[in-house]
Every structure is written in structure tokens, then in C-alpha cells.
């Protein structure tokens, strides 16, 4: 269990890391995009800490899931909103936990249906083992060493709390 203070601290470190990266790459006018729902909570905090000029974008990847024909339509799907064009823009994609990599693949597919980004940087609050696709994060808050039957879950939005759960 990681408590709220730790998480806010983790997000501040992530913001510092991101700022340094964006400055080193001379990125101006980056568009930050949070993935529903946990990724958006983390993105809201990062966005405020970095003071980004462009409003925060949000993605719901339900229409891009690769398991749609097995699990069906997510009844709680929300509209994706990108406030500005992604064409030739540097995107900072934010999610809560990087696990298999399938969510990030779906999010990148969706982003490319909005246009052609200049680059995508991936920032995640937590990453764990179990990758099924060749996807890595650029900025990571914390690494979790988990057993095969354990899961890490972010709850929020106030307060943010990370819990490690036994899979049923």
C-alpha cells in the first residue's frame, strides 16, 4: 500500500523528470493527454505542476480495445477530447499503471486517427512486470515487483491511493 503523500511526491518527481526531458528535447507547446480514468487523474496533477499552456486532453480507449469481441462494449465509455490538433505536436501520454502494454497500443492507435504527432512521450505512475508488447515508459513514478497473481490498482481522484491486490 502506498499512501497519498507518497503518491503526490511521486507525481512531483515525475513532473521534474518530464520537465527536464521536454527542455532537453526543446519541446514547446506539448499536448498532455490522460487515459481514462486513472491516467487522467495523474495527468491532471502533472499538467498543473508543469503549467502547460495547452489544455489537457483525454482519451477513452474503449473503441480501440483489442478484446472488444470477447468482452463487448464498455457501457461507461466517455468521449475522447483533444483540445488542439495533434499534427506535428509533441504528445505526453499519461497512464496510471503500465502492465501488458495493450492500453498504450490502443491509445497510440487512437491518437494517430486524430493526426500525425511529432513524437509521443509516455509517462506512467507505476509500472510492473507482465509486458505483452514491446512498449516502455519514458517517465516512471515507481516500479512494482509483483507476483503473478498480484495486481496494482489506483483509486481516486481524491485522495489518490495505490493498492496491491490478490487476483481473485
Amino acid at each position, binding site marked *: 500500500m502506498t499512501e497519498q503523500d507518497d503518491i503526490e511526491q511521486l507525481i512531483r518527481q515525475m513532473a521534474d523528470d518530464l520537465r527536464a526531458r521536454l527542455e532537453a528535447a526543446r519541446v514547446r507547446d506539448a499536448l498532455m493527454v490522460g487515459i481514462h480514468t486513472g491516467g487522467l487523474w495523474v495527468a491532471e496533477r502533472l499538467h498543473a505542476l508543469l503549467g502547460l499552456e495547452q489544455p489537457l486532453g483525454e482519451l*477513452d480507449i*474503449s*473503441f*480501440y480495445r483489442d478484446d*472488444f*469481441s*470477447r*468482452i*463487448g*462494449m464498455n*457501457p*461507461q*465509455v*466517455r*468521449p*475522447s*477530447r483533444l483540445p488542439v490538433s495533434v*499534427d506535428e505536436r509533441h504528445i505526453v501520454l499519461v497512464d496510471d499503471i503500465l502492465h501488458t502494454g495493450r492500453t498504450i497500443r490502443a491509445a497510440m*492507435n*487512437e491518437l*494517430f*486517427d*486524430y*493526426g500525425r504527432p511529432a513524437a509521443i512521450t509516455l509517462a506512467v505512475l507505476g509500472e510492473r512486470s507482465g509486458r505483452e508488447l514491446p512498449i516502455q515508459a519514458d517517465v516512471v513514478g515507481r516500479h512494482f515487483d509483483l507476483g503473478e497473481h498480484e495486481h496494482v490498482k489506483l483509486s481516486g481522484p481524491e485522495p489518490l491511493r495505490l493498492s496491491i491486490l490478490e487476483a481473485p
Partner: protein
Amino acid sequence: MRRHSLQHDSEGRLHHLLTIEGLKRQQIIDILDTAESFVSVGDRQVRKVPLLRGKTVVNLFFEASTRTLTTFELAAKRLSADVLKININTSATVKGESLLDMLHNLEAMQCDMFVVRHADSGAAHLIARHVAPHVSVINAGDGSHAHPTQALLDMFTIRRRKGEFAPLTVAIVGDIKHSRVARSLIHALTTLGVSELRVVAPKTLIPAAVESLGVHVFHDLDEGLRGADVVIMLRLQKERMQGAMLPSEAEYFATYGLTEEKLALAKPDAIVMHPGPINRGVEIASSVADGPQSVILEQVSNGIAVRMAVMSMALGRAPAEGEGA
């Protein structure tokens, strides 16, 4: 295994969409919410999502249609489905092949969904009863029975314009008796729970015992429009004129036509809707149809998102118990 109803699977999820009757309030809300997420797809560089990749949708239109057929086709294409349009006039049914034989042939070609428009009430139900378990049927209008996707897109349009349903007074004006749109609208609006639902028409165009559906009947247009938030005009089927149900187009327009003057009786921010195609100068004046309170073209664009929602929900179900994958 007993089915909950023909249009739901054993887990209560939408399998076919045949009528609004039997849909729970929450199920209608879920469809409208899902449609909301599909609206932005139309504003992107790539107006497509990959949800129904590899699925085949067949539009079976036994009756002429432009708006409904086109928006169903666009909706399926924006979901990345393959779409087939069977032109019934040139198909085998005119060569004596039965409807069900044709369906079974289409199933043998691995089609996943039939969108059906037919002049006979109950046609979509008949097809839904006979298709293979994995196939979904969407009713795109059957006789004077139902037109559920039209009612849903109208609910979507009302919600986007007005927010909540509870405080609204809605007036449906015109040929209630022969209109499948009216029937589906009445079921949708009473399920969602508007403050007052009115139907406005001459006695000859009101079905018997319509009050039992929870509507107030008005024969006077002025009274029916007074204080309304939403005015839904129905198309006057010109063929009804011959049945001595109505005097003349000119007289109908004078009594039941929506003019600017009549519309002024409704609330100042009332919206005017029409499922199309419009008979200008018969049920509605051009100045109203094209006027600032008209949302008629919005209804057409909303039809795409709502049909995307219905199609993806019906085809995006994990197979229920006893159903082939």
C-alpha cells in the same frame, strides 16, 4: 433456456433492436451515453474506429429510404464494418425466393447483422426469430409499428439541446395513427419520463385508446403547442388523403401546419423537430423548417452517432450461454 425477450440475450443485453417497448430507462440512457462518445469520431481526421472490423452488416431495405439507409451505412462504415446493400427490387425475392431463404443464404456468407426496413409491421421481428444466434437484427422501420433508432436519435437530440427530460413538455403533431415514429417516440418519452407528453392531430389521425400510453390528446394545434419545450412534427403521408381521412393539403396546413405564428405559442426556446422527409407547406412552413428553432438537420447528423452506438452494442457482446460465438 428461456429468453428474457426477443431483443435481449439471456444476460439482458441488447441482441436485436426491434422496438423501444421493453427497453429499460437505463438501457436507453446507456445507448445515448455511448452515442455521445461517437460524436467526436465525426470531427477527427480519420472518421473511423476499429470496433467492428471484420464484421459484415447487411442493409435489407424493402422500402425506399435515403436518410435512414445512408446514416446506417455511414455508421457501419465508421465502425469499420463491411457493408452490403441488398437492393430488394432487383434481388431474388422478386424471382420467387422467399425472404427466409434469402436470409439463410446471407447467413451462409457469414453476415453478422441485418438492418431491416419493411412496409409490413412485424417484419424485423420475424427475421429476428429466424436468424442464427450470433446474428443481430436492427429494425429500421416496419410498417406503422416501430422505428426505434429514429426515436433514439430524437431522444439524443432533445437531451443535447435540453439536458434533462423530466421538466419537458413535448408535443407530437400530425399523423399519430399511421406513424411508426410516433409510436416509438411515445414509448421512449414515457420511459424517460417527461413532464407532459401531448399528441396533437385531427380525430381521424389519432389511434383509439392512445391515452392509455400516458399521453394527453389535443385536437387543437394552438392548445397543443402552448408552453411546449419540444415540438415534433410528423410527415403527413399523402396517401392518407385518399382514404377520406383528411380534406386537402391546404386545409390541413391551415389547421395543423406549423407556422412561425403558431410556433410563437410554444416556449421561446422551444425546438422544432421532424423525422423527414418534410412536406413543406403541408405539415410545416419552410420558414419554420429552416428557421432558428429547427434542429431537423442536427437530427440527421445525430442519427449517425446513435446508430453507431446501437450497432456496436448489439454486436459487441461476449457470446451468452448457449449462443454460438
